């Protein structure tokens, strides 16, 4: 892209330039000719890079972007309870303790659809992250919700038995296109998408909307024909509400007489208290806090997951700390940082002498010793982790050896595994080569004569090292530390196996939320924070060392 715009700009400057005497062999101005060659070269380079770039963008960058998006995405509430969310937005939390009957009626319809599509438990677990108890609330409600509005069904049927006939509803609500397609449906493939009759949405808006959901659920979930199924009680509830709201029935509508008769009769129907029905499923529905939670989390995007990652929570009254016993993430982040730092420091302490030794030995010996560094580097991570698991166990080789020498009593073996010690020891071993290799390549470039010069000018060994050699090796320490730190902070396998509960990192928590608790939004938010930390260090690394200078295997 850039080269095209760049090239055309260059072209223009060439053509408008009056003094262009130099010509290439084919008669074009030399500048144009060179520009064309340059453009061709750029295009060729991009053409070679493009396949891989596209591959990485699609299979790596996009998935990570999508994951990050999940950390703010919260459409499940609005998708599962669309009617409720719409009506609930008007609820003034100050004016009334719990929302009005319109919200409960909307909830009855939404819950009916959600229960049939088995989405209510998912919504329950989503909201349960914010306040415990909501999962069971939705599960309990799902069991009883199909009875809500039964009173209206009975009264409609008592008025005219034809209300019991599924065909009546099909006549009123189904559009001609669906009717034709449904008549032709032969049982193969997906059923035709249900379509409403023209204009019905204006006449009976609530009923049309719930009936369309009913038809869809019957077709997709139960694989049945809506023309043969009795509508849900909530459809009658909606019909009652529409008629009561003063629907004007056009005379040419199907069953207009029945609807008109029902509208007259509905005025004297015995009403049912939907709220009471819900409270009978679970008294939490009369709880103001439950409704405020639902209202708070009904937006399609939320900062809730990020707040959770920082042990905060989004309450109806604003951001607040989570209860004391649920605060884990700040501790976990701090622990991850502290342990990564500890690992980095141990790597510096162990890697510096080795780097010095390798850099100052004759190259033949240095190459031999380098193999001792590279062998662990090349050995499978799982092999090294298994080795440490075996060595560090209570009945493992190290403890056995210590007991045998008599340093440690047999009944008081050292706890080296399933704690932070185990993680630090084994990860220091695993990441040490990543410290030694950059240190070595920097130390190799420090001329040994500097040290000698310092000493001949009267410096002691320590001064010569500290004032002359060490400052020159700092870039190596920096490069190695950032590399080790970046790698350590995102480690998962080793802490999982040797870390127990006290030695795990934030990564283990992310994995737990992905595979066990299924709280993907929280996992994505934790991952986003971790990614930002790592990219910060990566940026620093690029500044200090330059990513082009990463070397592998010395």
């Amino acid at each position, binding site marked *: 892209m850039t080269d095209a715009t760049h090239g055309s700009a260059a072209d223009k400057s060439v053509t408008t330039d009056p003094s262009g005497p130099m010509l290439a062999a084919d008669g074009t101005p030399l500048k144009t000719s060179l520009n064309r060659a340059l453009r061709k*070269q750029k295009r*060729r*380079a*991009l053409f*070679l*890079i493009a*396949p*891989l770039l596209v*591959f*990485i963008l699609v*299979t790596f960058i996009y*998935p*990570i972007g*999508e*994951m990050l998006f*999940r950390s703010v995405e919260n459409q499940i509430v609005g998708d599962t309870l669309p009617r409720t969310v719409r009506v609930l937005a008007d609820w003034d939390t100050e004016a009334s303790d719990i929302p009005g009957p319109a919200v409960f009626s909307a909830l009855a319809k939404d819950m009916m659809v959600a229960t049939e599509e088995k989405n209510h438990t998912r919504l329950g677990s989503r909201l349960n992250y914010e306040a415990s108890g909501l999962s069971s609330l939705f599960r309990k409600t799902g069991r009883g919700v199909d009875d809500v509005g039964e009173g209206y069904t009975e009264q409609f049927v008592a008025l005219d038995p034809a209300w019991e006939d599924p065909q009546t509803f099909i006549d009123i609500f189904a559009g001609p296109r669906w009717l034709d397609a449904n008549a032709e449906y032969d049982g193969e493939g997906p059923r035709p998408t249900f379509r409403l009759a023209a204009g019905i949405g204006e006449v009976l808006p609530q009923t049309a909307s719930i009936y369309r959901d009913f038809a869809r659920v019957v077709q997709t979930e139960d694989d049945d024909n809506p023309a043969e199924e009795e509508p849900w009680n909530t459809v009658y509830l909606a019909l009652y509400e529409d008629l009561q709201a003063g629907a004007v029935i056009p005379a040419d509508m199907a069953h207009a007489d029945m609807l008109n008769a029902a509208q007259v009769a509905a005025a004297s129907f015995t009403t049912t208290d939907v709220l009471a029905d819900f409270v009978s499923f679970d008294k939490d529905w009369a709880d103001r806090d439950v409704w405020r939670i639902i209202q708070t989390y009904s937006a399609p995007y939320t900062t809730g997951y990020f707040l959770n990652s920082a042990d905060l929570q989004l309450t109806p009254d604003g951001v607040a700390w989570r209860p004391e016993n649920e605060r884990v993430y700040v501790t976990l982040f701090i622990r991850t940082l502290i342990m990564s730092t500890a690992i980095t420091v141990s790597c510096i302490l*162990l890697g510096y002498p*080795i780097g010095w*030794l390798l850099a100052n030995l004759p*190259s*033949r010996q240095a*190459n031999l010793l380098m193999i001792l560094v*590279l*062998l*662990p580097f*090349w*050995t*499978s*991570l*799982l*092999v090294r*982790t*298994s*080795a*440490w*698991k*075996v*060595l560090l*166990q209570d*009945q*493992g*080789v190290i403890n056995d050896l210590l007991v045998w020498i*008599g340093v440690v009593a047999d009944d008081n073996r050292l706890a080296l595994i399933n704690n932070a010690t185990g993680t630090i020891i084994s990860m220091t*071993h695993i990441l*040490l080569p990543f410290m030694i290799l950059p240190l070595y390549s920097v130390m190799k470039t420090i001329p040994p004569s500097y040290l000698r010069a310092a000493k001949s000018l009267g410096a002691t*060994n320590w001064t010569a090292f500290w004032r002359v050699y060490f400052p020159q090796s700092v870039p190596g320490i920096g490069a190695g530390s950032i590399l080790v730190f*970046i790698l350590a902070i*995102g480690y*998962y*396998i080793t802490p999982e*196996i040797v870390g127990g509960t006290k030695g795990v990192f934030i*990564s283990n928590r992310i994995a737990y939320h*992905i595979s066990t608790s299924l709280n993907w939004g929280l996992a*994505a938010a934790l*991952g986003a924070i*971790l990614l930002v930390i*790592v990219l910060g260090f990566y940026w620093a690394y*690029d500044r200090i060392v330059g990513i082009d200078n*990463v070397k592998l*295997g010395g």
Partner: protein
Amino acid sequence: MSSVAFNPEQGRPLHPFATFTLPLVAVFGGLLGFIGGQAAGLGPLEGFIFGAVIAAALAFGLTRFVAPRPGRWLATAICAALGFSAGGFPGALGGIILGALLGWAIYWLHRGDYRRGVPVYATSGQVLWHNSFKFICGAIFFFLIAPIITIIPLSFNAQNFFTFTPEMLALDPAGYSLKHYADFFSNDAWLQPLKNSLIIAPFATVISVTLGTLAAIGLSQSHVPGRRAIMAILISPMIVPLIISATGMFFFYSQMGLFMENYLGMSKTLTGYIKVILAHAALGVPFVIITVTATLVSFDQSLTRAAANMGANPVTTFFKIQMPLILPGVISGGLFAFITSFDEVVVVLFVGAAAQKTLPWQMFTGLREQISPTILAVATILVIVSITLLTVVEMLRRRSERLRGMSPG
């Protein structure tokens, strides 16, 4: 002390025997005696005194009457005999090791060998520091290598234990067996993962190497718009923590898998393999890019121009001129990509299904749930594989350095 330091000829005692060699050897012998005594069932103090006395006697006798080489053998033999009388054959083996150490220490201290590698004008303190430093480095190398080496003998354990059994320490053949290897090669729970690993890693390697080499050649051209940004994107799979890559891929590939199953009519197993292979290919790309770019730095671009000048088309130029010269870099990049895929567990854990269980995955499950010694047999095999790969990469590196005219070292 510091006035004694000049010794033009190695091999003459630097310090008086009675105040330097004898006490140091006695202390060292005491420590060895402590370990030996622990094995032979003596108390700690008795072992220490016993070792110190023997070491002092040996030091006195050997330095006076015996030349270094036979002297070391003699010390070894004497300690072996002592060990044999205390603990039979294994005791003798322990005695050989302790005796060799003791013999070496006696002459090292007595003849002033510890000054080797130190300038003649160095003070005693500097010599002491020099040797301590060597000892520290040795300990760090031990820390690096020992865990990997230790599991090799443990994998031949006849028992289902993860430590050296008394039979093993006694070098009793009954303490060793190949049964964990037999289990690995006969148990389907291990063979299927091995097969999966051998399917997934080569395919992933081929994809990363093909795309990565092309891109590296493109990146090495002199004018690449946005090279820094492109490089950052291509290297990112190496920088982003695996758990984050795995999480992102988990969502992406589950949708892609559903798409392939429902709309392209592929079987679940096939899509599973495709998903894991693509994921691993992305992870291997940075390694190929880095190694091949590094090789291309030393590639003389005028060679391709010369080839073009002589009428070769770009494809011929690539295969006949450029490829053979950068091949070592491509191969080591490929080996890195292979080992990345072969060793990878986090992403496959999230992206793959049980049918794509790889060897590291099986090891991970084994370590987390029911740990079985077969893992050690597998680990040993993998160590041998990595030694082989390391050798190949080292040889390639030296070859390319030789081609570049640098010393192979």
